[in-house]
């Protein structure tokens, strides 16, 4: 086994095991993106979400913990945290809907675009969180494209699933090299390395 700490890990899993990444998608993962663009542009142009999916399905959006009402005027900057959800139940669920009739109920925390915010286009990294119906609907596309996750989280996931071996991970490549379940425990994790690139493909 290489003495070097892994910098990329690629999983191939069967479709019944995709749920093991569900928590990661909810807790938040990082992706590179062109920042300084609008929320709408980032989701539709960069992440390839159809505009109708954004308008009909993604009904609840938080930018840095603040509910967003206008996806066209809201700008995304480097280091932002973006959380996406389908429509939510309950009075408060309805209250958090983008541009919903009850938005006044949470006006004290609503996201408001600051004039001084930079809108210069540049490469940056944002944190993305996916909730509820969106986990299974758009989560796999992000996993396939590649996400960055705290090394500790992936280390723990592999540790937790090592006894299930090939039944969960059909294939696991570390820095491009296939490894078997017996090698899981011997991976040399570097405590100082904060993020690791992860790709996940679902076995056809």
């Amino acid at each position: 086994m290489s003495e070097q700490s892994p910098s990329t890990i690629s999983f191939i899993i069967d479709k019944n095991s995709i749920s093991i990444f569900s928590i990661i998608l909810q807790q938040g993962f990082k992706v590179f993106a062109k920042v300084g663009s609008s929320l709408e542009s980032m989701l539709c142009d960069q992440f390839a979400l159809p505009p109708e999916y954004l308008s009909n399905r993604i009904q609840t959006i938080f930018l840095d913990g603040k509910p967003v009402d206008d996806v066209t005027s809201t700008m995304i900057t480097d280091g932002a945290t973006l959380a996406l959800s389908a429509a939510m139940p309950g009075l408060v669920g309805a209250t958090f809907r983008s541009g919903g009739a009850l938005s006044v109920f949470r006006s004290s925390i609503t996201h408001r675009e600051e004039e001084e915010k930079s809108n210069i286009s540049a490469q940056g990294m944002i944190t993305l969180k996916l909730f509820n119906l969106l986990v299974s609907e758009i989560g796999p596309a992000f996993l396939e494209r590649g996400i960055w996750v705290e090394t500790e989280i992936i280390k723990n996931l592999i540790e937790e699933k090592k006894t299930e071996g090939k039944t969960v991970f059909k294939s696991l490549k570390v820095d491009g090299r296939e490894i078997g379940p017996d090698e899981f425990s011997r991976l040399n994790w570097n405590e100082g390395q904060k993020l690791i690139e992860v790709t996940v493909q679902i076995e056809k």
Partner: protein
Amino acid sequence: MDKILRINVSAEGGPTALEEGLGEYAGLGGRGMTSGIISKEVPPLCHPLGKDNKLVIAPGMLSGSAAAVSGRISVGCKSPLTGGIKEANSGGQGAQALARLGYAAIVLEGKPADDTLYKVFINKDGVTIEPDNSLKMLGNYATVEKIKAACGDKVCCISIGQAGEMKLSAATVAFTDMEQRPTRHAGRGGVGAVMGSKGIKVIVLDDTGMGMRKPKNPDAFKSANKEFVAGLKQHPVTGEGLPAFGTNVLTNVLNEAGGYPTKNFSTGQFKESTKIAGEALAQIEKDRGGSATQGCHRGCVIQCSGTYNDKDGNFLTKQPEYETVWAHGGNCCIYDLDTIAMLDRLDDDFGLDTIEMGATIAVAMDAGIAEFGDGEAAINLIKEVGKGTPLGRILGNGAKVAGQVLGVERVPVVKGQAMPAYDPRAVQGIGVTYATTTMGADHTAGYAVTANILGVGGSVDALKPEGQIDLSRNLQIATAAIDATGMCLFIAFAILDQPKTFQALLDIINGFHGLSLTADDVTELGKSILSKERDFNARAGFTNKDDRLPEYFKNEKLAPHGVTFAVKDEELDQVFNW
């Protein structure tokens, strides 16, 4: 549904039953019926556990019919928790069975001469009341098992657990679900304590031989019901989100918003929230052979409940709702779903309100009785309540009493009732409802449809602070009306977004009762219910000083947004100016 059953527990020789016509209560159902009877017949200054209080159990106007999602039931009384009027709402089979048996309400009244416990049996042939002290201090599960052995697996039970017998202010009235388990509860305000004060342990409903209630205009009713169901199924909340994840789907969203009350309302985010969110809960339920999609009563097409099995695959409890997972989870810093499910099971068995108990345990943790995050300690505290130890009786009387006894300032109650799972500093509009509702802090009080649909109160300007006051008022009016129909409040999302679905609801009511109600009439119904409730509370001694949040919500900033509750008192006083 043309009669009221009155059970007088004061009668010499034990309780007696009297059936009477509807009289002036004709046309009322659910909350309209409970608040109608309580406001007229109960002296507002009476002791909630005394002879003059009454417990009213009333199915909704559409319950017992083929109308979808119409199986909600209301339980009303003067509340031992708040001292004001109370309507607690429940699912389960009770509404359908009671309505099919022809009863618009059961009224328990008077005060028993001794501590004999009674069971009431109601079927198509009439009412039988028998003493049964073998039920004493049994939990709801054991009580239902005994009834099942005697009456079979088709009957519905309305029962109290140990908490109700001990007349604790957090005691619930339990209703059995489709699997004949006592998992559905009229939870809030201590209605179970009032049932206990009447000496009635269980009411058994056997609707064998009774058909569905028939609509006055079958064709119009059937067509409207079809449209209504289609509206519910096509909406992403009622057709997808709720069936897939249940109400606990809200955990991640509230946490992200910084409005998830954590560690006894001391902060707005819980770092372990994803471990107890609806997504994780549904996965565990499926992995253990339970179910994440299940209705709480026959005729439910939303199916927001489920079955939670233990690690060995055995039934533990129904799918804990968002409020329960929050109250026993994030609010107490507990993030183990098995612990939370066990707490839910114990609450259901002892007959305790999960919101009140979660809030109370968090107050106790703030006082140092247990450590935040200690799930085992939380379970032991609930068990103390079930056993009726001195500490248990203090906790079983709710957060306000526990806070007073334990010397805690941060006690999240309004009118003595614990707040649910939304911090009013982050969601200030719901703080308006918490403060002003007749029920005490209640998340369901301002729930239903917007001003835009009902056309009450004029249009709301979302950019002005008074918009929150107007919206809260309109939502409270609409919710009172929906509570009268027996419809589940979760229909709100579909009728909020889809005018055709709202019209279908009106058409169902009109088709069933042969009426021609408009949206304005629904508004008037809601206003009339709220007016009666406000009047009762005023006569019970409530003033505008009771329509306030605890002081610390104005002074303590809530992380992460650093916000306090900023709605002014004079604005709160405008909510009921219509």
